[in-house]
């Protein structure tokens, strides 16, 4: 039984989400092989070889992966699975926008179902995944010969270092020519990445404006070394870019401490943060649903409470 993990990387290094996926793969109990498909991805391949629990790293290095297009990546994964002649029982990728984009394509070509965002593994063919915005947990059993799975990264620890896997080059697929990247605009931030942060300070519509969002929350986040998040309302109102959004349709986070400031706590927002270890809510509305999940709630005007909190920590 071989488990193939499709690495998310930026060529130079692995993304953190890949390490969580390796941990999930290790739980299945087989050989864990990482596929690094990139252009000039030597750094990422070396990093993959050092991950604990990995038995082999397959590297497909070619310009056809420069854009990380779903079409070319999916073809490569399918090639690797077919070349293994039935040895690969599972294909895993993180349930990030990367994994969600590529893996269903792989599953369709292999004519198997895909299992999305698993949060637990019961056995090699039985998995637990949230449905209805995290309001129910479904246990599903797959009868397919290859299980194609995306992994909710916050549900599995990151794999450590200490591995010494062999690195093997594999032939890259031909370019599908179906898709061309024409621009990429990444949000630059010195703060920790939202998905991996230990502390998250998140703001909602209660902040009132983009200016207030930055003025009120940034000093607190900086002092705590926290990442900044937002509710959909704050994103739609233009306070912050969309990649700050926490929720069913944004990022799923599970930090040690989640500070919800001026967020009412709609079902869709709770879906993205209710597995946080400690939740603190600051809201002036004592009836806000966020207080039903908050370990510590402070009913107060955020414009007074947050600066007080900032100066006190």
């Amino acid at each position: 039984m071989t488990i193939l993990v499709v690495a998310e990387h930026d060529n130079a290094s692995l993304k953190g989400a890949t390490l969580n996926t390796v941990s999930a793969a290790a739980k299945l109990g087989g050989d864990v092989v990482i596929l690094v498909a990139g252009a000039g991805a030597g750094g990422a391949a070396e990093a993959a070889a050092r991950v604990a629990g990995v038995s082999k790293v397959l590297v497909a290095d070619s310009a056809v992966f420069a854009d990380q297009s779903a079409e070319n990546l999916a073809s490569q994964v399918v090639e690797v699975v077919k070349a293994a002649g039935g040895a690969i029982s599972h294909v895993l990728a993180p349930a990030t926008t990367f994994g969600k984009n590529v893996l269903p394509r792989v599953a369709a070509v292999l004519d198997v179902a895909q299992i999305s965002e698993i949060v637990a593994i019961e056995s090699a063919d039985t998995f637990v995944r949230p449905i209805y915005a995290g309001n129910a947990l479904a246990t599903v059993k797959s009868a397919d010969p290859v299980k194609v799975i995306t992994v909710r990264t916050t549900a599995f620890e990151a794999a450590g270092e200490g591995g010494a896997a062999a690195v093997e080059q594999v032939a890259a697929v031909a370019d599908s020519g179906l898709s061309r990247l024409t621009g990429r605009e990444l949000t630059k931030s010195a703060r920790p990445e939202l998905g991996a942060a230990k502390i998250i300070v998140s703001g909602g519509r209660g902040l009132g404006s983009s200016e207030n969002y930055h003025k009120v929350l940034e000093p607190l986040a900086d002092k705590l070394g926290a990442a900044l998040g937002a509710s959909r309302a704050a994103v739609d109102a233009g306070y912050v870019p969309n990649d700050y959004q926490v929720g069913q349709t944004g990022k799923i986070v599970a930090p040690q401490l989640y500070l919800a400031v001026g967020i009412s706590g709609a079902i869709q927002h709770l879906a993205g943060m209710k597995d946080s270890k400690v939740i603190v809510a600051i809201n002036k509305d004592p009836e806000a649903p966020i207080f039903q999940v908050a370990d510590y709630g402070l009913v107060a005007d955020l414009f007074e409470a947050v600066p007080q909190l900032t100066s006190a920590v």
Partner: protein
Amino acid sequence: MRILVPVKRVIDYNVKVRVKADQSGVELANVKMAMNPFDEIAVEEAVRLKEAGTATEVVAVSAGVAQCQETLRTAMAIGADRGILVESTAELQPLAVAKLLKAIVDKEQPRLVILGKQAIDDDSNQTGQMLAALLGWPQATFASKVEVGAERVQVTREIDGGLETLSLPLPAVITTDLRLNEPRYATLPNIMKAKKKPLDTVQPIDLGVDVAPRLTTLKVVEPAARGAGIKVADVAQLIDKLKNEAKV
């Protein structure tokens, strides 16, 4: 150009779902159903492309029980020209839906298929990608901006670190993110007009598709409830609790 827009009937997004006592699923009886919000955005985008003169016809398609007709009528009230219902009482999983949609695409020959990025019930986020794979078409998922040209479509996508823009040759598959547009409300006259628009019904067997589920749901349970927390009086007490009780 013809645009195909698949739409799904799901529990209304405001409803607090209840898990059935026998753990077989969630309670769907007497619960308000509506069009999946991401699909409303897909219909709106297709209708805007028609209004802009880019598209000539917008065809809405839904797969599922007979009541999915209502969802198709809603799509037609927003502005879709006609509807196709693939009627089935079976549990339709994304791979089966993608195969049904491929059969419809083969028949209808659209140049663009616009789907929602995920349904808010199964939260799979798979169907669009699977359809693109089965057709051998390019895909642009999580779209927040779509510009259709004569031979290519430019799509801005929401990705984890920000945004990226792809250029795809037509025909192509696009899945919508929430920020693509603000769907319009269907007006009463348009709802009335939608009742007269054509709605065809086909069976999966007519399309030659085996819709048997590949995944078996063993049980559905409620997630562990979070214990109710406490309300603190002021910031000083909050900090004290966080440091001494929660130890963060």
